[in-house]
């Protein structure tokens, strides 16, 4: 079922807003991204920095029939892929976070330099949960975070996927970051 043509067909249908096509595409993509991600994380992580963008793009390259790529669909593809990356990485964090804690390591950090909450960490799972809460009242914001953080897209690309201007993306991004940073800090305080 993971033949390239399938995906191309699905991408073609996407253009006409077929929900069924999206659903099938998601299934295809999920397995493809999952195997890619786990391969990177397991074996190749050590080689170099994993670039989420690269991952998503590679998935696209692998899936879409390169000869008949409908470029206009790429943005939609990236949107779906980012969503899937989130699911995969969260799954992965759930599986591995515990192990690491058990070994006495610190929690999986977002980034020490981020300065969100010094000394304390907010992990992917916390972010995921916060994002879910954000989506409840502002799905577009949540989607943006998904695209940028999990999908590795930049402002420009995100603007393309969301079909809004760059300025809007930047503004929303600032709000979302502020809101999420606050949410995560609150989570940390509860933890402590």
């Amino acid at each position: 079922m993971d033949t390239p043509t399938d995906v191309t067909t699905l991408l073609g249908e996407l253009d006409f807003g077929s929900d069924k096509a999206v659903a099938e595409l998601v299934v295809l993509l999920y397995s493809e991204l999952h195997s890619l991600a786990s391969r990177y994380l397991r074996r190749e992580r050590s080689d170099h920095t994993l670039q989420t963008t690269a991952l998503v793009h590679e998935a696209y390259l692998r899936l879409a029939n390169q000869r008949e790529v409908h470029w206009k669909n790429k943005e939609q593809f990236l949107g779906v892929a980012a969503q899937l990356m989130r699911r995969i990485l969260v799954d992965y964090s759930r599986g591995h976070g515990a192990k690491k804690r058990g070994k006495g390591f610190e929690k999986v950090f977002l980034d020490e330099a981020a300065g969100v909450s010094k000394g304390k960490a907010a992990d992917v799972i916390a972010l995921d949960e916060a994002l879910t809460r954000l989506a409840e009242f502002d799905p577009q914001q949540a989607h943006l975070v998904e695209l940028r953080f999990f999908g590795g897209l930049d402002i420009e690309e995100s603007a393309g996927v969301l079909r809004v201007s760059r300025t809007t993306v930047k503004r929303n991004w600032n709000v979302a970051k502020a809101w999420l940073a606050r949410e995560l800090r609150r989570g940390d305080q509860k933890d402590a």
Partner: protein
Amino acid sequence: MPEKWDQVKELFTLALERDPEERSDFLRQACADDDSLRSEVESLLSSFDGTATFLEDCPAADLLSAPSRAMAGRRIGAYRIIREIGHGGMAVVYLGERDDQNYRKQVAIKMVKPGIDTEQVLQRFRNERQTLAALDHSNIVKLLDGGSSEDGSPYLVMEHVEGLPIDQYCDVHKLPIDDRLRLFREVCSAVQYAHEKLVIHRDLKPANILITKSGVPRLLDFGIAKLLNPECFQTPLVTRTDWRPMTPEYASPEQIRGHSVTTATDIYSLGVLLFELLTGHRPYRFAGQSLLEIERLVCDTDPEKPSAVINRKEERVSHDGEARTAITPESVSDLRGLQPAELQRRLRGDLDTIVMKALRKEPERRYGSVEEFSRDIERYLTGMPVKARKSTITYRGGRFLHRHKESLAAALVVLCLVLAIASWEVHQLSRQNAIAPEPKNAQLQARRSVAVLGFKNLSDRSDTKWVSAALSEMLATELAAGEKLRTVPGETVARMKIDLGLPDTASLAPEALAPVRKNLGSDFVVVGSYFDLGKDSGGQLRLDVRLQDTANGETAAAVSETSTEAQLLDLVSRVGRKLREDLGVAEVSQVESVGIRAAIPSNPVAMRLYSEGLAKLRTFDALAARDLLTQAVSSDPAYPLAHAELAKAWMALGYDAIALQEAKKALELSGKLSREDHSLVEAGYYEVNKDWDKAIEVYRALSNSSPDDIEYGLALANAQIQGERGSDALKSIARLRGLSVEAKEDPRIDLAEAEADRSLSDNKAAVLAADLAVRKAGSLNAKLLVARARVFQCRALAGLGQSKQATADCEESRRIFHEAGDLAGESKALHDLAEVPFNQGDLEQAKTLYEQALTLARQTGDKKALSRELGNIGAIYAQQGDFAAGLKTYRQALEAARDIDDKHAMAVVIGNTGDILHAEGRLGDALAEYKDALVLAREVGHKSSEAIDVQDMGDVLADQGDLNGAMQMYQQAVNIQREIDDKFYYSISLMSIGRLKRQKGDDEGARKIYQEAFSLRRQLGDKGLEAEAQVALGELDCDSGQAAEAETLARAAIQEFRAEREPDPEIQSEALLSRSLLQQGKLEDAQKAIARALTLSKKSSDVTIRLPLAIQNAYTQAAAKDLPDAERLARNVAVEAHKLGFARIELEASLAIGEIQLQGTNPTLGRKRLEETEKTARSGGFELIARKASAAQQASNRS
């Protein structure tokens, strides 16, 4: 949901756009007395502070890595860490200093990030250490120390370089162009040095090239450098072909695509660097581009030239996204101490060329080495002609003029010539472009290709030799599944192995791989060995497989597996899975594994037989292959590929009908095969069935879906050539040429073009194409291809009448085939070799060569070749007048053709047999043969043969006196020939019709027809046939008393036939000459002509030549007043003609007898005979003879 979220968002955004100190005032005003709204916004604003990098710089997946720990103050070996100065994917670099009172030198300490120190990373780290340790160059950062920290993690200590990245350095110091070039050359010397030490840097960019205060460049970060050293093959230092760290702006197309990386990759990155140093711009702008778009840009579009790019206005955003710098023509020029126009002038020409050469998409087309690159810059700096341009002739002229202005006038002449040549080249190029519109697209889609070369048998048991072929086939199928990789067909691999004399081998040295890569165009090869562990192990087999990168010889993967012979499939699946994984190709899907299963025999016995048969087929032993494959088919009747290969074997033996049955079975059974395999089987069936249109369709589909696969393109072209669509074939060929760099060097493409040109009768183009093929194949050492190309060259040259060169080519070809053990090839070369003397009339030499070809055909068992060569030898006997030997040889040829049920060959041989019988005067037998031939020709739908047979029948009928029957036949023949536009035989039929009209007394009609035949033959360029038509016109002249004209024509024809060594028409011409001379009263000359004709005719026993000559002889004797002898001669002809049933000749003889009697021997009888002859002739429609008889009577009445 937070209350009033939309308002919150809006106010947050507005507040953020204000200065921090204004924000609270703003919010107080905006929120009026809504305190909760205000506090919510303020809370978010305060939360926003400090989120500058939050979620920004860390890709999500990085979250999963272990955290780095504060290291400042920690001691590593003899060093103390001061602070972090950088980090990459696997390592962190700290600034450190030696904890030593006297010696406070600062160093850079590189450590593996904690938590990811897996064996693989450590290996890489050791690699870098090893790399750096091997490098000792003033422009490369020095390794000072290395070791393991207390917790066991390894570290490297390097000298700490303080300096600016090269681009910044140049701009800060406003270096002029020449200084930038000199600095760049120093960088080149460091990279060249590394290359000499077999190290590729792979990440050259300004940040890794620091210039110290004293202006010395230092190359840093060999973190992802690659060792080319073959010794490292043993370590698991595997080059991944998937994504790897790189800086896209400086990455070469091959890096972006994940292809193999060579020294040319560094040359490309240096090219980008030079581009930037010269122009202030980068070749491509990636701002806001996705990686996919980057790939498209880098791999598929040409950058602007440096001299053009400086006109670009650009805003460069710094890494933190805050600072913006405007780059304008003025700013870049200023930084180089020039005006924009001056900078443009400096860059235009040499510097453009040098940079663009380094930036070529195809690694092979860049500079051959960094040194070469650097030296070209030196040449520029010293005003010498740069090498990057040596291919364009005009340039050299330009440079020449520049340096020798005083001798301008003389040089101008040279320049004009040069321009003429150059514009011709441009014309050639544009012509090619017009045919191949989208070569670049094709290149974009190129998949990586793998060739399975075979496996070395390490056990001393030779009975397991077949395993290599079996494993190769199965593994290739496994790798081809899903069409993610392009696999080179086993046949092509086999040919290459013979060409290069490559044995099955466990691994190949880089120097041995280079020719393999060139020959097959494959990125990877699979080699290895197997070892039979013997009976004690239960028939276990151990297989060691190695995947080697053909670009550099690196082992990309190595797998060892053990299995029993019976479970080879499982073994291959396991190996295949691992190789696919290492090549980054998805696992075989369920559907695909069905295809793989279907491509493999169901039982081990069939597998062994099939593999052995295949090996035999590929080493030119079709007989053995047929036997083995027949057994394979009976062992596993449902296995489609055995049927398909068996069809090929039968084809090679000439048994087209049986081959067709097998090919059909293969097609019927091929339902479960993969798409590609199925298509190949289908196309194979159409090929055997000579259904070229369908074969073209299938190959076109294959070639469209896999445009990167040259094999399909070649197969398509071949089918088009066979299907007589030569111009379509040329289009396919042009597309193939644009496919890739490798394709440009692939002699098979030129070979196909030669064949297509030949099929379009364009011998000149064919010679050129074949010559290219010979040269390309020669440089690849591909002997068999050279041999094939030489055969085409030979044919084309022979077609151009250049027999000497043609012979040389064929002889060379024959020699190569002989050495390669390709008897079938040798036999074909001999056949073509024989054609040359045959067409020149050197029948003895031709026969000798045909006989040699025949001997080889007997050895290979190719019955079609056997029948063909026997047929040729028979034809030579027939031409030489040795009818008995001719008939005997034709009988053998017929037998061979009948064995393989080759009806077309049978029709030809039977028709030719008819010709001999006709010449022997056996008219009835000849007619029967022609009829048989006609039936067969009609059955196989061979129109040309059909027409010839019908026309031959007409000739017999005409000889028998059935002029109306003959005319009907001729009409039929002509209709067919017009339909199929067969000009050659049409002109022959015209001659027959002309002769008939002449006999019927229609002089004017005959003349018109002869003239049509004559001008047609002139068009065809066949001098002999032209002369034949002239002789016929001469006969008409004689009939109407224009003897002088006839004499001229006859004399010219004699010259021609003598040169062509064609005795029969020469005899006829001499007879005509004699007749025309007699009419002019030149008896003596007429006698001489007859004497020459009689001498020639001693070698010919063709009744249709001999008898008319005897009649002319009788007339000559009569003119010499030897009347009794003349009468005797004429009587003999009459008797023989009557006996054989040649009604016309009998009438002509009777006419002669009557005329001679009338002259004196017996005038009364003569008059009576003439009366009777006139009557008989007229009633039979022989108006010419009747008229002559009547004229003779009237003449005697008058006298």
